[in-house]
Every structure is written in C-alpha cells, then in structure tokens.
C-alpha cells in the first residue's frame, strides 16, 4: 500500500541573498513496510525534504507541489490538523540526539508528554507505555532511565530514546534524518542494528536519509540519489549497486571505500556541488560530468524510467548501452565481482 506520495515538491528558503531552492521538483513514493533511502552530499536538500514532509520548515520557507500521507494532502493543511498528524501518523528522528532532547526535562516526562499528546490515556498508563517503548529500543533498566536527564545518557542511549519517542504512537511514516551521523562508529553500528530490527517489527514506511551508501545497502529496499535539490536516480537497492545509471551515482559508488578497485586513494568526484542560490540552468551535475553534452547544459533531463532496468528511473540523456557500460566500469562494480 502506497503510504507517502511526494509529487513535484519545491521548497524555497527566502534568504538575504535571494531565494534558495533547496528542494526542486522532487517526486517519490514509499509503501508501507518499505524503507526508502535518500542519499546525497551535504547541502543537497535532504533535510529540507524531510522537514517539508513533516511540515516543520521555518517561516522563511515556501513550499509547492503535493505531499500525500495515505490519501491526505499535507501541503496547505492547517497547522492544527498537521499537529494532530505529527508524532502520531508520522514521526522523525533527528541527526543529533545531543540537541534534540530537552536538556531540562527528564526522559520520562518527555516520553509521557509525547504519548499524551495523541493518546487519551492516564498518566500511569502513559508511563507504562513509555517504559515499554524504552525497553523496545534496547535501553537497559528503562524504569531508572525514565528519571534521567538527557545529559546523564550517552549519545547512543539518547538516540535510542529519540527513536523510542518517535515510535511511541506507532507512526505510519518514520523519517530518519541521518540518525547515526553524530555518533561514534561502534554506536553507529548498534543503532543501525536496532533500526534493522525495528524495520521488521514496525509496519511503517521508513524514509532513511544518509550520505552513507553502506547504510543504504544494509537497510533500504529502494534508494533515491539526490543532487542539488533534485532526484537524479531512483532504483531498488540491489539494482543501484549492480547497475548504477547516473554519472553522479557512479561517482558516489566509486568513492565508497573498497570499491575503487586497484586504486589506492579513495575516488573523489571532481569539482564541487553548485550553489543552490544560483544553480546551473540545465542538469545540475553537468558542470562536473565527464559525459555532459551541450543539451545537458541548457535543459535538465527528466527523471524517466530506465528502459532495460526494472523499477529504476534516471534523469540522464546518455543512452542505455553507454550507461550500463560506463556505470559498471566507473563505479567499480566490476572490481567487486
């Protein structure tokens, strides 16, 4: 069942220097029980996209297009109606658990508040649910932790609390915006393990935002590659790794450790991402793309279903044969085999 449908979403921030088109015509969809990964470099608009879906953008942002949760249109929804959905039907996990919990409220108070915002239950019942929630994300002696303040917990524990909080009201949509980026490597692995378990248990559609393709490979069903506010490629995970279609994706894959074959140094895509304040006219990757044609510099290619590849779509002018050949060669998939 299709749970989240985003259609031609555009999110623009008003700034002193002019409008910044952080999300520029993004379309995507996620089914219940599926995990969609969104990957892309820092600043490509991943957080702007997730905040748009949650309706959490600052006042300086305007948004057009359509976001549907189930059948319900979210764009243009009144604040009070959106508030009822947030934390109940959809929830989000933030990047930095150090800052996303209120430092002067006990963990328990925050969890109980989250429950009672959406469920008509007694304090005692909410308390029981909160303890269960903490136990479910693998927090030892949850009863004691309820009384703790956030700064008494380690980063990993805090992120578990944040995850528990997001799951308390059994949301249908869960957005995780780089849930492990702020954590050390061992903790990252533990949180990913937790996400993997939860994936099986909660029947929610999950959008997992990351700049780490390794995480995508482990957790996601589908993946969308974002570049400078647009989705340039979307594919089932296995397909993306086996037959990457977009030159930007090739670069991303080549820069993964262990994939660039004989070369010692990690591959880096030449050039830098464009400023979203003054983006290039055509394909936004064209200035960095070795295959760019004249047409690429004036008109972006639309995101079209790749002819020979089931379930994937790519926004690129290259013909299928070239894409298949170069993709395998440049992204280092061959070396892996």
């Amino acid at each position, binding site marked *: 069942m299709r749970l989240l449908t985003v259609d031609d979403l555009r999110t623009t921030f008003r700034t002193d220097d002019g409008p910044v088109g952080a999300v520029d015509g993004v379309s995507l969809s996620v089914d219940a029980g599926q995990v969609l990964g969104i990957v892309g470099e820092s600043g490509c608009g991943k957080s702007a996209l997730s905040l748009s879906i*949650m309706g*959490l953008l600052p*006042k300086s942002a305007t948004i057009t297009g359509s976001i549907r949760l189930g059948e319900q249109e979210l764009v243009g929804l009144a604040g*009070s109606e959106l*508030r*009822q*959905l*947030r*934390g*109940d039907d959809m*929830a*989000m996990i*933030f990047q*930095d658990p150090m*800052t*996303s*919990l*209120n*430092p*002067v*409220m006990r963990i328990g108070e925050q969890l109980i*508040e*989250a429950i009672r*915002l*959406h469920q008509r239950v007694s304090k005692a019942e909410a308390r029981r649910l909160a303890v269960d929630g903490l136990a479910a994300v693998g927090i030892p002696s949850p009863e004691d932790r309820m009384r703790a*303040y956030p*700064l*008494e917990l380690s980063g990993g524990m805090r992120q578990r609390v*944040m995850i528990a*909080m*997001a799951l308390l009201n059994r949301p249908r949509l869960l957005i995780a915006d780089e849930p492990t980026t702020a954590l050390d490597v061992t903790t990252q692995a533990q949180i990913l393990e937790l996400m993997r378990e939860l994936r099986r248990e909660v029947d929610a559609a999950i959008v997992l935002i990351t700049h780490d393709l390794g995480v995508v490979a482990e957790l996601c069903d589908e993946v969308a590659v974002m570049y400078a506010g647009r989705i340039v490629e979307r594919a089932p995970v296995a397909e993306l790794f086996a037959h990457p279609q977009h030159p930007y994706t090739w670069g991303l894959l080549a820069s993964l450790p262990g994939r660039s074959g004989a070369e010692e140094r990690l591959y880096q895509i030449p050039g830098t991402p464009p400023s979203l304040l003054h983006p290039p006219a055509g394909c936004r990757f064209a200035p960095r793309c070795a295959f760019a044609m004249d047409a690429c510099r004036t008109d972006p290619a639309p995101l079209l279903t790749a002819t020979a590849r089931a379930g994937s779509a790519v926004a690129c002018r290259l013909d299928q044969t070239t894409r298949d050949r170069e993709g395998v060669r440049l992204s280092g998939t061959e070396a892996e085999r």
Partner: protein
Amino acid sequence: MATVEQLEDMKTEGMVLARTPRQLAFARLRRDYVALISLAFIVLLVLFALAGPLFESWTGHPVNRSNSTGVDDYTLLPVGPLHGCADGLASVGERACFVLGASNNLGYDMLVQLSFGARTSLIIGIVATFLTMVVALLLGVIAGYVGGWTDTVIARLMDVVAAFPFLLFAIAASVAFGASLWFVILIIAIFSWFYPGRIFRGEVMSLRNREFVTAARMLGASNTRIVLRHLMPQLIGPLTVYASLSVAGAIAAEAALSYLGFGLPLEIPSWGRMISDAVPGGLYINAPFLMVFPGTLLVLTVLAFNLLGDGLRDALDPRGGTLL
C-alpha cells in the same frame, strides 16, 4: 600553574558533571559565601519586618505616633539611642525607652518606624517585581517566540521605555495623579520591565531555533505547549536572577521617590522619607543617627538583593555566557 584550590575545583566540577543543571547551580551557590550572607541578611530583614507589631507593643510606641518623650525638652532634637533605658526596658508607653532613639522631631520610635519601613520596602520590592516579571515574561517571550512584526513593535516599545527619564516622569506623574502605594508600585513596574524583558526575549530567540523545539513540534506539540512546557522552565534561571536585582531596584526607587517627597503618602512608613526627615534645619548634623540608621538599612538591603542576584547569576551561568 594550578593551585590546590583550582585542582579541588576541577575535581568537584568533574564529579558533579552527571548532575542536572539545577543541582549544579545549587552546589555552586552553596560555596558562594557572599550570596549566602546576602540571603541570610534578607531572611533576617523579613523577620525584622514581620516583628513590627511586636516592637509596637514591646515599646508601647505605635507606628506613626508622636511621643512627647521622644523629643528633648531643651534642644527640641529627637532623642538618641537608648534614651530612657537606664531603668531597664520594663516601662511601657510614653515613658518607655527609645532603643534606637526617635526617628524625627515628632518623636516617632526609630525601631518601630524602621521595622514598618522594612515592611513597606519588601512589599513594594516584591509586588513591583512580580508585576515587572509578569510583563517582562509576557512581552519578552511573545516577542522572542513570534518574531517578525510583533517582535519589532515590542522591541521598539522596550527601547522607548528604556529611553524615558524615570525620576522626571515619576515626579510629574506623582504631581498629576497624587501618590499612593499602588501608584509607586505601578510606576516602578512600568519603568523596569523592559530590562528583564529584553533578556527573556533574547533567551527565547536563541531557544526557539534549538533542535529540541523542532523535536517537540515533530511530536505534535502546540506553540502554547512548547512555550509553557519547554521554554518557560529554561527561563527560571534568568527569572530568579533578575527578580532579585529588580527587588533591589524597586526598593531603591521607592526610597528615592519618598525622599524627594513624591513617593508614598505620609501614613506609610518609608526609609526614604525617614532619611529626608533628617534634612530640614540640618537636623542630621546634631543627630546623625537619624540618617545613619535608615540609610544603612537601605544600603544593606539594596546591596543584599543585588549581591544575591549576582550570586545566582554566577551559580546558574558560571562562564558568564548567555545571561548578560
């Protein structure tokens, strides 16, 4: 090189790291002797103010009542401390001794007047501070949280109030409306809310963009709830600091107005007026205690509230960061 004391400090800081900010603040406050002494003084002052009726019945000198025995028959000066106490403290009424002397040339009892003056000062300090803080919180939080035009209007209003010359305006208004207890309280509150208001506005502005506020919104909390449940508790620190400073300011302002004769009506005892009573005819030259007693008490009281406020600030924000 680190001294033993600093090492001791570092050790305790390290040990208390796992405690909550509030516990940390209390731990720091407990080591701040200046603040503790100030607090002790304030407690004693409150007891002294509450004891007013006791002093009245003990001396037999009701407040605001002239006593012929309180004025020296020959010099016509108010009698000095311990006047008539040679026979012990037993006698009552007109003939009873003046422990701290008389407070003016009508022979009011200094001890009784000081005690009731303390009562006045504390009431004005507390009520004016309460009003000040209510207005400051309301406008400061609204300006900081809502932002935009609302913020611009409130911020300009703060600037305007800050630019007003308080004494000039208060004296003019006192002449126009006539002074009363409420007048003094209101005029003080009207001219003091802008300062803590600015602090609260700044605090809320920086808090509102913190991620935990976004997280609370993510969970479906309304703006009202975010302000009341998530932001207000973080303002308790600055609130206590500026409340303490504001009490000091209000007490000093009342004393100034009453000294100038534009403050409280005559039937309400006031330290400021007691000081001004010593001025006509150079009374204070022959009877300096007339000025010394209320003056010292006023200075110590204002100092105590100010030092307590400073101590609270240091305790809540040891690195001198956001509060000032």
